[in-house]
């Protein structure tokens, strides 16, 4: 915006301002003494200038900052509630005659992970199994334990980068809760295949049915 700089106009406004001020000053004095509460409020305001937060006093910025803080807090808190967490990250399943596809999905408004920030694994495995292999990359990790006859396989993936196709022919499929996790299970040829999502990560556990649900549950609950 161009400002008028002509001296006559500036002079006119200066005189107008002076006239206005004279009119204001000629007004009758306030017929009361400012209250102690008012003085205290003003002193608080003056002192508050030393803090950076004072710019948020009584402003739209404060309202915006408050709303953002509330939303951020709710989002952070919601991740600790399994019901909400599962709605944030979930599997989309597509069922075909021969197989079922699981595709990990996440919320659009949350930044997607590009690498695993928290590597997790079962802390309890039946004692007759020994760790045979562990591979780890930025987006995936896998543990394999073996005993004489069987093996247990555990995988951790980034949920939104995960998709798997499970052969569903001649399998018994069910959904069940173990702890807070909604787990998709397949039982076939003496093996359990388990798939679930916890927060931004998708997990897979393959283990022999001979272990029994009690031990499978114990393995899943020990993941940390």
């Amino acid at each position, binding site marked *: *915006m*161009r*400002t*008028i700089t*002509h*001296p*006559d*106009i*500036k*002079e*006119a*406004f*200066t*005189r*107008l*301002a*002076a006239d*206005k*001020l004279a*009119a*204001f*000053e*000629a*007004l*009758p*004095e*306030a*017929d*009361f003494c*400012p*209250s102690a*509460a*008012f003085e205290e*409020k*003003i002193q608080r*305001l*003056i*002192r508050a*200038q*030393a803090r950076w937060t*004072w*710019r948020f*006093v*009584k402003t739209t910025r404060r309202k915006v900052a408050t709303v953002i803080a509330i939303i951020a807090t709710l989002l952070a808190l919601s991740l600790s509630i399994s019901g909400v967490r599962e709605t944030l990250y979930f599997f989309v399943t597509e069922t075909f005659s021969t197989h079922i596809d699981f595709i990990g999905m996440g919320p659009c408004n949350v930044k997607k992970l590009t690498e695993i920030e928290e590597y997790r694994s079962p802390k309890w495995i039946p004692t007759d199994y020994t760790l045979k292999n562990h591979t780890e990359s930025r987006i995936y990790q896998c543990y394999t334990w073996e005993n004489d006859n069987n093996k247990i396989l555990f995988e951790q993936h980034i949920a939104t980068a995960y998709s798997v196709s499970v052969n569903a022919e001649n399998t018994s499929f069910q959904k069940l809760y173990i702890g807070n996790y909604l787990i998709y299970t397949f039982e076939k040829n003496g093996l359990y295949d388990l798939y679930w999502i916890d927060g931004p990560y998708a997990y897979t556990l393959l283990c022999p049915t001979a272990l029994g649900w009690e031990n499978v549950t114990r393995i899943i609950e020990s993941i940390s």
Partner: protein
Amino acid sequence: MLPIYLQTVMAQMQEDEQLALAEIYRQHLPLMLKIAQQYLSVQEDIEDAAHNAVLAIARNIKKVKELQSSQVAVYVALAAKSAAIDLYRKRHRQAPLPLPAELADNVNIPVEAATANSYDRVLAYIKTMPPQYIDPLILHITMDLQARDIALTLGRPVGTVKTQLRRGQKLLQKQFREMQKK
């Protein structure tokens, strides 16, 4: 973390701003109160208006240069007047605002009554302009405040102030050109 010398400078700036605000408050509180009293009758409301005016001034304190100047007094007075009018409107949402005659901006001074001096004629014309343009123009032209600062001071939306400044200046320029032709 800021370097220590910058922290010192910033602390000094904040201290200066605090001192400036305290000084403005000390010098001009009576003026703010008497202006607010023209619009509001309850003491608490008058004090609230003065508080809002101090808050508006605090937000623009960097723009206030010479504390003793009459410009600052005008600035404080306009801030107090706007804060008082805002509060009055809040208290009487539906009621029209009766402006005391001595505070009215649209005092009709006929242009032809002005003297031969160019600035007198300009002044006479300004007084015929729509009143809502006048306070923003005073702050813009005499104190070089920008629309954002004026909006903070007068408690008006920035867009409104920009429009008022643009239209006000357009009217002035048009009138000024015509005066020069004559």
